[in-house]
């Protein structure tokens, strides 16, 4: 590998994405055929994010499906984008995980080259550009639809952003869910966010409970598996930064949630 020095006119600046393009390594290339629609690839399913007293909770189930097969039971869909933001993915798992890796590198790259951290709005726009660059692949069936959330140091608050396939970026007031089980999770979250802002523990319980609800209604969403020790991935983003909830804590919460759901729906 050579030393990537560019003359000032062609310099890609702090953009890692532009650097990759200059080096001929850009991951966003149009597929030559439309094969993607006919081959079966792992897809990630339900992800959600909502605000609580200290910031934002992000969570995702652990299942990836290929058609009606379960492709993976332990896939992770929630990632730290950097110290103060997180990204969750639904859609074609391959390109989505790759996009997260590129996004993480881009944020750190900018910080190192420029010597300052991007604003939360700047990070959200960067992700929008990546999704837009992925549009040709999305049109061929490899869609990636992430949720982005983070702590805004300028406004001292947690913020949530959602995207469409064309890179359209929309800020949410309180919550959002996407993926195949997203609609089912949404009902639980809406009902749970009625009163005063939730404390951390209540917020984690609501996240797990929304995912359990989704897993009961949507075959592509995986529920918690106490026998195998598989729990949803839940993370919090606050002024202290991004942190995953531990498996021990999630196990306890999951048991409580399942207990509390006994008799729900009149046993149907």
């Amino acid at each position, binding site marked *: *590998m*050579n*030393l*990537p*020095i560019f003359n000032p006119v062609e310099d890609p600046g702090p953009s*890692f994405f532009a*650097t*990759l393009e200059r*080096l001929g*390594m850009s991951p966003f290339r149009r597929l030559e055929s439309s094969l993607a629609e006919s081959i079966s690839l792992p897809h990630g399913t339900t992800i959600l994010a909502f605000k609580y007293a200290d910031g934002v909770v992000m969570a995702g189930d652990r299942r990836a499906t290929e058609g009606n097969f379960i492709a993976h039971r332990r896939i992770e869909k929630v990632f730290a984008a950097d110290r103060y933001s997180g990204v969750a993915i639904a859609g074609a798992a391959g390109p989505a995980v790759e996009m997260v*890796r*590129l996004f993480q*590198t881009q944020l*750190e*790259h900018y910080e*190192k*080259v420029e*010597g300052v951290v991007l604003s939360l709005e700047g990070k959200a726009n960067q992700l929008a550009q990546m999704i837009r660059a992925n549009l040709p692949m999305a049109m061929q069936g490899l869609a990636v639809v992430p949720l982005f959330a983070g702590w805004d140091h300028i406004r001292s608050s947690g913020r949530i952003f959602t995207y469409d396939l064309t890179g359209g970026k929309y800020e949410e007031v309180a919550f959002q869910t996407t993926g195949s089980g997203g609609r089912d999770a949404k009902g639980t979250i809406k009902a749970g966010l009625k009163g005063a802002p939730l404390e951390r523990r209540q917020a984690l319980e609501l996240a797990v409970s929304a995912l359990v609800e989704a897993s009961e209604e949507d075959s592509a969403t995986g529920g918690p598996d106490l026998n195998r020790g598989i729990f949803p991935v839940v993370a919090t983003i606050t002024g202290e930064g991004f942190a995953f909830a531990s498996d021990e804590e999630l196990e306890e919460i999951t048991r409580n949630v399942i207990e509390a759901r006994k008799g729900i729906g009149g046993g149907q």
Partner: protein
Amino acid sequence: MSMPFYVAPEQVMKDRADYARKGIARGRSLLGCIYSGGILLCAENPSKSLHKISEIYDRIAFAGVGKYNEFDQLRVAGVRHADTKGYAYSRDDVDARSLANVYASYLGQVFTHEMKPLEVEILVAELGRNHQGHSQLFHILYDGTVMDESHFTVLGGDSEAISRRFGDAYSEEMSLSAALKAAVSALAGPERSISAGDVEAAVLEDSNGRRTFRRLGPSELTELLAG
């Protein structure tokens, strides 16, 4: 028709080396050392925003002396090299030795082929995975010469005298505070002293998580220099 003057290659190289050395000697020196908790990089730098010391990757730091725009261009290229390599392969595959070699070949190339050599000396420091045993300091000169140091190294004009002064105080088991004090007094010399406000310092330490690079802020510097 006029004939170009013949100049012996030895003379050309000597002139270029003199030119580069003169440029480098105009600035202040910089010191990198391995101490008990990691690696310390320390420089005299009155500017708060134009850094001589920066982060390259999880366990790698960069420091440069000489012409700011030239070593800053090298710094950015290093960040690009490391991030591209980490993205293409894995974070574990990014190492200082390979980066030092790329820097050396670039500096050597410019020194022999371009009109003007780069007036810089740079340091690539890597925190060892097994604590201090494998930490390395690669000191690279304007002509592409690489020196691999395992204890400490000084970059810049007055490096021999500073090395001598620092060598007298140095031991691998030094604490951060002791290493910083020794570094600052070696950089200052016997006749003057450097205030905490004119010191730029950063460390590579395992306690910082994945990204081991951390700048020492003004209050921490004052505390360490006083303590």
